[in-house]
């Protein structure tokens, strides 16, 4: 995996997209692991009983896609130190999701190279069901 260095980054840099299209099968795998007991993640009938159109993707699963985007970009020597996301809309299985981030700030503080990002997931309708910010520490170029 390639390494991103602090000196090569500036505000406005775009990261991604990491494209995801979660299936009902993948949701089942995630849910069985996390023991989310809510039927809305595994059964269309249960989801409809709650007023939804059908199964939805767990928010924490979608958040994990954003974490993957950022840690892949930061490389082995980089470190995700903060991730703050808000869940604004439902994500449904089969939705084509583009996980993206934009660098908003770079600073050196207490000897650490800190990069701040805006990060979000965009669906095919151009909506952003998940949106937030992240902070990453990057190594200096050797």
């Amino acid at each position: 995996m390639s390494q991103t260095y602090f000196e090569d980054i500036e505000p406005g840099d775009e990261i991604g997209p990491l494209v995801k299209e979660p299936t009902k099968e993948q949701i089942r795998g995630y849910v069985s692991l996390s023991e989310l007991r809510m039927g809305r993640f595994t059964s269309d009938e249960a989801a409809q009983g709650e007023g939804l159109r059908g199964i939805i993707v767990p928010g924490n699963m979608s958040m994990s896609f954003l974490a993957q985007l950022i840690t892949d970009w930061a490389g082995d020597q980089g470190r995700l130190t903060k991730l703050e996301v808000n869940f604004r809309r439902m994500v449904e299985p089969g939705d084509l999701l583009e996980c993206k981030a934009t660098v908003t700030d770079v600073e050196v503080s207490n000897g650490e190279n800190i990069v701040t990002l805006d990060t979000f997931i965009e669906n095919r309708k151009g909506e952003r069901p998940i949106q937030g910010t992240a902070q990453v520490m990057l190594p200096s170029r050797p």
Partner: protein
Amino acid sequence: MLEADPTDAIDFDRSVIGVSYDVGTHEVTEQQVAEFARAIGETNPLYLSTEAAKNGPHGVLIAPPTYYTSIRLQAGPDPKIVFGTMGFNASQHCEFYEPMCVGDTIRAKEQISRVFAKTGRTGTLVFAVRQTTYVNQHGRIVMMVESSNVRRDMGQ
């Protein structure tokens, strides 16, 4: 004139606010890290290849940052909010201090830090904010999460 706080009208157990509960321990295993990685489509060798991890910055397999969402613990404090027909994950605010490593024993503590109501265009929403702190076997805090759950009336 002060407006009434809509939270005052919400029925919930105020005695749990700010009280920290020990919600048990979790052992980070190679198998669960691999299953979690597979479930979210992770391919990073630091999570999946013992060999790559050995030569990586931590020397051992580590878990992806959001692995905490797959940790099964005892039920935490319940503010027993009497409102709405449905609850949703509203936000997750995470601070990561060091990775959870395979072989770690993670102890978690949880508290409800706040319950509050907001009334807007779409009606009233009631939020419960839960803080979870994860500590490893060395006594170091590896991460903290503030997760917010919102309850609303879907019939509104």
